[in-house]
């Protein structure tokens, strides 16, 4: 693509990042920016959440709930939590805890388990996928079969069986993260294997092999750097899965009650039928937090997919560029827009800029 562009007179000659850092350059699409901002917010929350929480999540104060005295002689008194107020921004629970404090403290374990499991699963999938793809033969057959079997067996039920048997899983977020990673590595392994297969016969790998590089060195220095975008995408996907899995386990009561996380909050709220009682301030905030965090990961993942495959981007021309070029509507078909020069003197430049931008990001890929 870049050879065609070099003939265009308007090709920008502005600074191109040094090759070393090009792999780290991210596309500047709104999806990526929104996703990054959300993730950054939750990362900060995970660090400072437990510090800025006004109370301990288990701190109880009987004055934080209303006790409704029984109206009849033999009736039992009813406890009702407080709705949000100045003292308790998100109200209180029926156990007389502060919801905001629980929410802030829970951020740490939820985010930690998600990212730890995502990282562990990605390492596992790189190990399996790259080994299988690069070595080929019997190793490939065996490892691919293992990955496919793990993909076919439903993850959550396996997770539940594992979590209910492994001793101490209900008290240790790290152990839970590892169990989640064991059930979540297969998808990434399959994608990475496919990409490695296509890389291993490229000329630069061939050249390294001919020049006598060791297999290990070729894998680490020639193949792996080209897998970074796909590994990152699979990391985001697995983290998304891991957060969902952790929260689900906690909701089922399999993640213990010592480590505060958003799933545990939802479980307690559900157990005291907070949704049916109209105590939205108790069950809605943790759910919204999980959804937002997942949304951030998914947005970043879409951005990453578009980075890997530039054809998936919204359109060739941005709305502003199209208007400046005097185009009424953007091309409907997926074809590269072909227009007569007389109609659009300006867009030649903006398309060229657009293309250069695309080829700039696409150029980081092999």
């Amino acid at each position, binding site marked *: 693509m870049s050879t065609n562009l070099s003939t265009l007179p308007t090709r920008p000659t502005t600074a191109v990042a040094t090759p070393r850092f090009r792999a780290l350059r991210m596309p500047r699409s709104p999806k990526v920016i929104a996703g990054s901002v959300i993730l950054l917010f939750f990362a900060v929350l995970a660090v400072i959440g437990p510090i800025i929480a006004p109370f301990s999540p288990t701190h109880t104060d009987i004055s934080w709930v209303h006790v409704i005295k029984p109206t009849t002689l033999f009736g039992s008194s009813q406890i009702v939590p407080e709705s949000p107020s100045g003292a308790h921004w998100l109200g209180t629970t029926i156990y007389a805890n502060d919801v905001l404090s629980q929410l802030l403290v829970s951020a740490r374990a939820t985010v930690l388990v998600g990212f730890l499991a995502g990282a562990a699963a990605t390492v596992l999938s790189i190990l399996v996928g790259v080994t299988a793809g690069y070595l080929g033969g019997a190793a490939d057959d065996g490892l691919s079969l293992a990955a496919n079997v793990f993909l076919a067996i439903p993850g959550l*039920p396996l997770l539940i069986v594992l979590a209910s048997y492994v001793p101490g899983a209900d008290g240790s977020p790290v152990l839970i993260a590892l169990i989640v990673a064991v059930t979540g590595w297969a998808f990434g392994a399959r994608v990475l294997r496919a990409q490695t297969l296509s890389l291993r016969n490229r000329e630069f790998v061939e050249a390294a092999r001919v020049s006598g590089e060791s297999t290990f060195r070729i894998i680490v220095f020639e193949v792996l750097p080209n897998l970074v975008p796909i590994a990152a995408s699979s990391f985001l996907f697995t983290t*998304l*899965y891991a957060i969902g899995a952790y929260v689900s386990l906690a909701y089922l009561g399999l993640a213990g009650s010592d480590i505060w996380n958003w799933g545990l909050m939802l479980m307690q709220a559900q157990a005291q039928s907070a949704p049916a009682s109209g105590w939205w301030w108790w069950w809605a905030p943790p759910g919204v937090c999980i959804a937002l965090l997942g949304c951030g990961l998914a947005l970043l993942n879409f951005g990453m997919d578009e980075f890997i495959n530039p054809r998936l981007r919204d359109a060739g021309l941005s709305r502003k560029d199209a208007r400046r070029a005097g185009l009424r509507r953007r091309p409907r078909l997926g*074809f590269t827009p072909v227009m007569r020069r007389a109609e659009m003197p300006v867009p030649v430049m903006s398309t060229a800029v657009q293309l250069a931008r695309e080829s700039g990001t696409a150029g980081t890929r092999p």
Partner: protein
Amino acid sequence: MLVLVRRLGFYLLAAWVALTVNFFLPRLVPGNPVATAIGHLTFVNAQVVAAIKAQFGIGINESIWIQYVHYLGDLLHGNLGVSWGNSFEPVTNLLGAALPWTLGLLGVATVVSFLLGTLIGVALGWFRGSWLDWLLPGATFFQAIPYFFLGTVLLMLFATGLHWFPISQGYQTTGISSVEPGLNGAYILSLIDHGVLPASTIVLTSIAGWMMGMRNMMVITMDEDFVLVARAKGLSPGRVVWYAARNAVLPSVANFSLAISLVVAGQLLVEIVFSYPGIGYLLFHAVTNQDYPMVQGIFLVITLVVLAANFLADLVYVALDPRARQVA
């Protein structure tokens, strides 16, 4: 045909792995949680305890391989032990009662989600760059919401809030409007009434995956030469879309296996929220009561259901794509 035989062989292997995990896990984990759980059981006669101990290999002198053979034999006879949390009823009976509910809900929700998601995905790919693109972030948001949380929100809005739909159960069992199960209109209406909210929850959370996959494949397919030819020779846009979509849908069918296990996981949780009488609801009680035979039985049955669904998807794929038939 050879392709299908090979796929069948693969699923049999996957099923064997699942049931082997099921056998070895309770025997190999340290601390023996099952023995501890048995200690907490009350009102049990000695015969039942002996059967449970035999099932989990506690205090048995047989070698583990003999136990394994016995275990496989029991499975072939449909003997999954007794459920501790349900007055020691055989697990197989309980699963048999719950399975139709789960399969029905899963089938309807998956088919609706797949068809609707694929159609929207075609539109998204075709009208790329229009206002339709705004559906994507919205769908992403729904996809990121945990199934049980969205279920709770829908329950709040449409059942407890607006009273449009019932709060729980699979059909009306109590009150004036209770219905008799059977082939009568009132029962079927009640089924639909109770199924709308759980099914919508599953559709809303799972549809984004089909939409995204189909949109991306549409975008890629529309760059293919055959679409250009179809367009150039003046076929109507509808026909061009049809040709492109037919080819773009293949990866969606091929990716079915990944999607279905996520959907099944979500459905188990949705059933808990709606107290739907399916396997997820059984699972919740089994987990709460540390009912190990039940948990294991559920794991096995769900795995078999998912593998069967995968095989069905393979059948469809082979029927759709002639290339899949030629692979030797």
